[in-house]
């Protein structure tokens, strides 16, 4: 969807503020939210596609007001509500009952090494190369389809309708547009497409600069 999250090229934001000696987390709830979300993602089947899809649906004003981890929390809540696991009311009631933040007692007591091994494993969206055919090859000229679907998609708006060149075919990956809607993994080839800055932003852009964007097969058409 063409939401507020699709920020590439949007003007008016001003300077980039850098923190000196930034802590890993700025608030203790961010630390906790990070851990909860990481664990819940596995246990409730909350993929990155679902995470992003629900973040994108946060209304624009609220999106801009919320910090990064607050968006994670809003997204997880929306997902849990959608799945009937927890409702907003459940959370509101519990907040009221708790009054002040506290943490439940630990349970299984996984060791740091266990966790490290699980995280090192990761969880790739890559699928068997035989599952999809590549419609394009390196050096092909392609145009990003000028589609504006209402659902989660990963072609930034600034690339729509623009022409670039396939720089690399990375193989076959789960397709976010369907996976985020529980319509199946529908794996497709994913390519890096290189655009000249001028193709994207007009003649005022420096002639030699370029942008590389990773795009799934069905976002593209021959140019």
């Amino acid at each position, binding site marked *: 969807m063409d939401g507020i999250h699709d920020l590439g090229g949007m003007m008016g934001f001003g300077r980039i503020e850098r923190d000196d000696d930034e802590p890993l987390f700025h608030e203790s709830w961010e630390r906790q939210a990070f*851990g909860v979300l990481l664990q819940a993602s596995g246990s409730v089947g909350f993929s990155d596609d679902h995470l992003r899809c629900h973040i994108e649906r946060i209304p624009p004003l609220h999106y801009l007001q919320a910090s990064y981890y607050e968006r994670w929390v809003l997204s997880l809540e929306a997902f849990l509500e959608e799945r009937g696991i927890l409702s907003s009311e459940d959370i509101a009631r519990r907040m009221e009952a708790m009054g002040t933040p506290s943490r439940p007692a630990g349970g299984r007591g996984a060791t740091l090494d266990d966790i490290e091994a699980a995280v090192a494993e990761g969880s790739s*969206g890559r699928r068997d190369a035989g599952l999809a055919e590549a419609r394009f090859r390196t050096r092909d000229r392609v145009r990003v389809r000028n589609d504006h679907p209402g659902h989660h998609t990963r072609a930034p708006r600034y690339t729509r309708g623009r022409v670039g060149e396939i720089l690399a075919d990375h193989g076959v990956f789960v397709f976010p547009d369907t996976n985020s809607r529980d319509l199946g993994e529908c794996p497709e080839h994913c390519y890096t497409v290189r655009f000249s800055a001028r193709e994207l932003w007009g003649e005022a852009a420096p002639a030699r600069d370029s942008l590389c964007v990773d795009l799934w097969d069905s976002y593209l058409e021959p140019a």
Partner: protein
Amino acid sequence: MPQPHHRPSDISLRVAALEQLLTERGYVDPDTVDRLVELYETRIGPHHGAGIVARAWTDAGFRQRLLENASQAMAELGISGSQGENMVVVENTAAVHNVVVCTLCSCYPWPVLGLPPRWYKSEPYRARVVREPRAVLAEMGCGVADDIEIRVWDSSADLRYMVLPRRPGGTAGLTAGELASRVTRDGMIGVAAV
């Protein structure tokens, strides 16, 4: 979607309620939550990336393998994992300066750089670096000469990008460890020279 009027003034209470409810329902274990965070607090961070860079600077074969298949080359050093399952390393040269962003969310190569700094996740960086990378880099203290191509990598899919900075001059005698200490997180994102 929780509506704005439900938005708590106290997000910390909200997260606490969420953790408690998910714990009761068996989806979360608070101890595991702590260990997960601890992992990023104590073990995973930009020192991983710096080690990779230093190795690439001192071992031409490794550098070649890293640029060809970064995930495989990293695995030689025991580095892999979540948000870096499909890594790509892009090399700065005399002709090209690379810089990484994720305009749509804030994708970042966790196994090599840890969790992203706030500025990387900020709207101004995400919005501006694709359209005016030269201005952004200059503002961040990393001016790039006009005759060098700036190549911006927008991590819009499953690939995660790390920049291999150019090895600074006057470092011929240094060990890989000494070299690694010269490499900054910002250099590996592409907003600093090294």
